């Protein structure tokens, strides 16, 4: 493979292990990830430089002077809200905010059913702010909407999403919610997620968990409701206590996401249950009543920590529950790491090794014929950085050449994974971008055979003649050994016939000028570190987020 390997010395490796996290659970609204983790959303360069810049905290200062539409944290914040069983979501804003939410209806119904959960329809309201409310404030309408939602559906929770417009005009949703708490049966969850406030839209997950921890949900079981207290006079008292403690000490909570499917959960359950652990899944597709048993476990584990770190940090602080952020279990090496870390916590290393060795051997044999067909094929991967990195390792596992990576955002929580990528795949071209102009530019230069893309961008791959499969989808399995095999099969199947994208690319016109393709894809990314982000103690600010090694 053409990538140049870079020697990373021990001191640098140590530096790269540091993680940036500054959160405050007590504030009304959480800070965006640009602040709390120095998460970057604009960058062009390579893995080595990316990781260094994340360490310095200066990725967050990079901006674009030409940009295109993308996602907002408000849209992303709806995802958890809808997938909480029997919830209602209220968009406090003009009629367009959240108007894409009808599609959540089948998402939660179908993927709930796959988990054996009968979900209600996606139920949501728009406060429908008009010009008058933009002048006079929309609090009255919000109050009316909350009361209507509560009366109409008796929901398990009401998530109130603050959009851009009421945020600027100064609606105080916390006061409205506080006032109404005694009048509604549903817990009211304030979500401060105006789109303009965060360019790193995964800030939405922090917003939702911030709202959840402030809404008064209970995370400990209720005696006589959730369990029968053991009577000290019971002759079997000690045995029952031991039994209870054994159960709890062998229970692990895994945290899911809308991007994670029922089959993924089933595969991770299979592997961990094989070690004798009791596995439960939170918070999506569960009812807030179920959350009372969250603390009845020995350990919390994020299946994708981009999603859940904030909540796990809260549970640790509030209840002393330990947590792990192993990785996202896509591909053999990441699955091994995921299971091994959990096994180590429970002292099951030996059992884990035996299980994983056996599973890996079986997978290796199964992948052999696929490997023969796909080896040397070039792939480009784009989306959330944990998915991108682990899918990259899987592509390498089946002999493909990863020619480029496009992370939607990036911070130090990716360094462990991307260090592994640098060690195994080399210093490959890497961007932080969800911009389609940058994508088409990069793809034209890297000329991949196939792409693995976040929803919404696969179209641009196809327009360029590159077939694209989804980076995540509830329809398919991605996690564990089954997921590795299935993802490899999908790559193999897609490469077997490229007619669709080839035909499309020959017959459509791209909305991009020829001159654009002559420029570097990161041409419009500039370093505004000084203006925007306050310096991080102990780090030098700057460092240049513009790509340094000419890698594309």
């Amino acid at each position, binding site marked *: 493979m053409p990538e140049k390997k870079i020697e990373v010395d021990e001191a640098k490796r140590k530096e790269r292990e540091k993680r940036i996290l500054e959160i405050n659970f007590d504030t009304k609204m959480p800070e965006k990830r640009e602040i709390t983790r120095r998460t970057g959303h604009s960058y062009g360069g390579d893995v080595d430089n990316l990781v260094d810049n994340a360490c310095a905290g200066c990725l967050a200062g990079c901006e674009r002077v030409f940009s295109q539409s993308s996602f907002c944290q408000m849209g992303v914040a709806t995802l958890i809200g809808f997938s909480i069983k029997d919830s209602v979501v209220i968009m406090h804003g003009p009629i367009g905010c959240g108007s894409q939410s009808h599609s959540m209806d089948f998402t939660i119904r179908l993927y709930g059913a796959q988990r054996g959960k009968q979900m209600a329809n996606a139920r949501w309201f728009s406060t429908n702010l008009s010009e008058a409310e933009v002048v006079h404030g929309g609090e009255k309408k919000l109050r009316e909407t909350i009361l209507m939602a509560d009366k109409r559906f008796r929901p398990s929770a009401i998530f109130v999403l603050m959009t851009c417009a009421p945020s600027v005009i100064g609606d105080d949703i916390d006061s409205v919610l506080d006032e109404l708490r005694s009048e509604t049966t549903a817990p009211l969850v304030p979500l401060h997620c105006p*789109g303009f406030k965060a360019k790193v839209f995964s800030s939405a997950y922090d917003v939702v968990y911030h709202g959840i921890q402030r809404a008064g949900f209970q995370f400990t079981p209720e005696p006589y409701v959730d369990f029968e207290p053991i009577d000290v006079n019971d002759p079997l008292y000690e045995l029952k206590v031991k039994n209870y403690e054994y159960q709890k000490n062998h229970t692990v909570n895994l945290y899911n996401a809308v991007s994670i499917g029922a089959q993924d959960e089933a595969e991770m359950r299979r592997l961990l249950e094989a070690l004798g652990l009791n596995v439960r899944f939170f918070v999506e597709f569960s009812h807030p009543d179920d959350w009372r048993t969250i603390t009845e476990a020995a350990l919390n584990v994020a299946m994708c920590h981009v999603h859940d770190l904030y909540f796990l940090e809260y549970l640790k602080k509030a209840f002393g529950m330990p947590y792990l952020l192993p990785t996202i279990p896509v591909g053999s090496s990441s699955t091994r790491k995921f299971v091994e870390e959990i096994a180590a916590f429970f002292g099951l290393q030996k059992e884990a090794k035996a299980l994983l060795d056996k599973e890996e051997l079986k997978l290796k044999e199964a992948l052999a014929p696929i490997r023969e067909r796909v080896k040397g094929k070039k792939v480009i991967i784009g989306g959330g950085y944990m998915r991108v990195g682990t899918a990259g390792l899987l592509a390498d596992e089946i002999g493909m050449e990863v020619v480029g990576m496009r992370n939607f955002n990036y911070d130090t929580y990716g360094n462990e994974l991307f260090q592994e990528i640098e060690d195994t795949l080399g210093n490959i071209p890497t961007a932080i971008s969800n911009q389609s102009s940058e994508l088409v530019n990069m793809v034209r230069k890297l000329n991949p055979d196939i792409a693995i893309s976040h929803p919404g961008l696969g179209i641009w791959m196809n327009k360029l003649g590159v077939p694209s499969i989804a980076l995540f989808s509830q329809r398919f399995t991605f996690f564990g050994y089954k997921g590795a095999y299935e993802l490899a099969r999908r790559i193999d199947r897609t490469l077997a016939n490229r007619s669709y994208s080839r035909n499309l690319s020959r017959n459509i016109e791209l909305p991009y000028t020829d001159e654009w393709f002559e420029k570097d894809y990161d041409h419009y990314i500039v370093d505004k570190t000084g203006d925007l982000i306050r310096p991080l103690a102990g780090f030098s600010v700057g460092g240049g987020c513009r790509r340094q090694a000419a890698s594309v």
Partner: protein
Amino acid sequence: MSVSERPIERPRYSCMLGGVLATAGALPKTVPIVHGAQGCGGSLAQAAMLGGCYGTGYAGNAAVPSTNIGESEVIFGGETRLREELESVFDVMKGDLFIVTTACMTDIIGDDAKAVIDSLQPLPKPVIFLEAGGFKGNSYYGYGRLIEELFLQYIPRAKKKRADLVNLLGLVPAYDPFFRGDLEEISRLLQQLGLTVNTLVTAGQSHADLLAAGEASLNIVLSRLYGVDAAATIKESHGIDYTVTDLPVGAVATEAFLREIAEKLGIDKALVDRVIKREVTSYYNYVDRATDIIADTDFQNYAVVIANGTEAIPYAKYLDNEIGWIPTHVFVTDDLDEDQQQVIRSAFDAVPFETSPELVFETDTFKIQQYIEQNTPQFLADEYYPTISPAFVLGSTIERRLAEVLSGPFLPISFPVYNRIILTRGYAGFRGGLTLLEDLISAQLAPR
């Protein structure tokens, strides 16, 4: 644009900017530029996707240039950022027309986007501008405003009109999910009358067509509500007369539509008769074939129609006047003021229903179902009582639930439609009427 004072549960449209972006995305080689937050363009593209998998198209969704204003722009103003974007956009994006729009945020903070554009003139490509803050109205309103500005700022005012040239207005891309098929069928029919037809928003339309639209002698507005204000403005600015009519669905409505337009334009009656005879003969040749299955399965249904102000009455009319069903309720799901409701009521009253359905104005999804459940209960303790059965629901995909309650099949025809993809399919005209018949019967045969 009046917007109701009520909050809405599961609204069946998006905001003004949503309508502007969906419409801009249907114009040939057109690049919209949003001066707003980063999520506006992306989220509203996802909303438009609910119009039968509408798609990104030429430069939609993630390709839409957007200033992605952040906190500092909200505090200090976003004009500098817009200038920056406009200075680069022509180097990156290729297009024949660029449409700069504002969004809620930039309208609220009072950015003078027009001044920024003016200060950069001459720009290398035609650029039009409109304020499109989402709180100003809904997607239908956005469509109308964009069409208006397209004429005012881009389409030349032609003194000399072409007698044979007409423009079709009123169908809103994505939010009228069958707009392409419908416009193409109506074009096909009008072409047979010797007319040249600009649809502005279907495949095959070019900027030459757009620029020639000012030479048309008639704007045909296929909606009682949308595009009407634009047509009135265009009459003032371009001197093009306009006519407002219902979207014609099926043979009965389409024959009347063609005669109405022909009369308006003074087209030879013999030609009109010939065209209609040929179309009707062909139409009934197909209907004839469908009659076995219709007769043998007692195909007649009670029907509930749930659609926007453009589509609801034409569909109900087709069901009653054309295929002899009994529509019981017609729900108009748009947010309409008194005057607009009156327009719809008049159009409704003009339909010669065999059995008049009930016309209900309701935007709220829960209340639509509640209205039917409470007024025509499906379950009573009595032994004998009339129900809406056999029932058929024509509505949006959300109506799956109502169809379950009424134990009947359903056909998704109105926004949001997210369980089918709609490309060429249309229900207007003769061919559309047949397609609708196919789909209505197929929905009943699907469980076989």
